[in-house]
């Protein structure tokens, strides 16, 4: 593998992404953890551009680093978040979990480290959005409509779950 600009871009994006994840695990304040994860989301959008998926990259920035980060920050601000104390006696459990995750990572890595399909060159980068639109409205029209139903159900369900009970409001009035 020769050193190229593509490899350099991949390395920078991957390091930033992994660094955001490591900061998520190690920072002590909850708001800082969420902001650290924004780095990961933005650099993953760069990875998508490298994989010739421009539309997915734009959606990633819109949904993840826009919507989901903001909704998580609201969730933190609406609840009590200045409690940074760690639970006592959980060290053994953490070590065991770390070893388990490491074993899982090793098992998967054996399977993927020299994977190569010798795939033919694709033209995914030409008119990427148009290709996605054509595929959505020909092959995947029913899942596409079902997704809108899922989003509607999630919207109504979130409102009903998060609103106050009627009895409580009646008591206040």
């Amino acid at each position, binding site marked *: 593998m020769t050193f190229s600009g593509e490899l350099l871009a991949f390395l920078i994006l991957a390091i930033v992404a*992994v660094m955001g994840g490591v900061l998520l*695990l190690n920072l002590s304040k909850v708001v800082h*953890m*969420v902001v650290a994860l924004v780095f990961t989301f933005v650099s993953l959008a760069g990875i*998508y551009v490298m994989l010739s998926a421009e539309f997915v990259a734009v959606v990633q920035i819109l949904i993840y680093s826009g919507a989901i980060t903001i909704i*998580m920050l609201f969730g933190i601000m609406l609840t*009590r978040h200045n409690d940074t104390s760690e639970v006592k006696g959980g060290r053994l*459990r953490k070590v065991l*979990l770390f070893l388990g995750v490491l074993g899982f990572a090793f098992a998967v890595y054996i399977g993927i480290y020299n994977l190569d399909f010798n795939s033919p060159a694709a033209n995914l980068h030409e008119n990427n959005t148009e290709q996605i639109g054509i595929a959505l409205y020909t092959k995947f029209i029913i899942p596409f409509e079902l997704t809108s139903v899922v989003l509607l159900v999630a919207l109504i369900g979130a409102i009903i779950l998060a609103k106050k009970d009627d009895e409580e409001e009646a008591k206040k009035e």
Partner: protein
Amino acid sequence: MSGVPISAYLTLALVLFCIGLYGALTKRNTVIVLISIELMLNAVNINLVAFSKFGMIPSITGQVFALFTIAVAAAEAAVGLAILIALYRNRKTVNIDEMDTMKN
């Protein structure tokens, strides 16, 4: 094939998935657990888009599937946060080890 091989993308996705898994299993704050799950879903999306370019038969279907995953993940985050708000109103806590009503 020049440039970055598929195994590099898959390894990056694996590392992010493991960070998300460890965070989801060890963190105490429920919001952080939710956002770790989002990180795991993101790692899966990398795999889908990578196989859409470097797979046996490259096609646009992987990217379409990644878009569906993003939509469902957004819905999941909204509903999870609504459950968290409702729980916080009743129990006055967001720590995941104090949410053990069904245990007793």
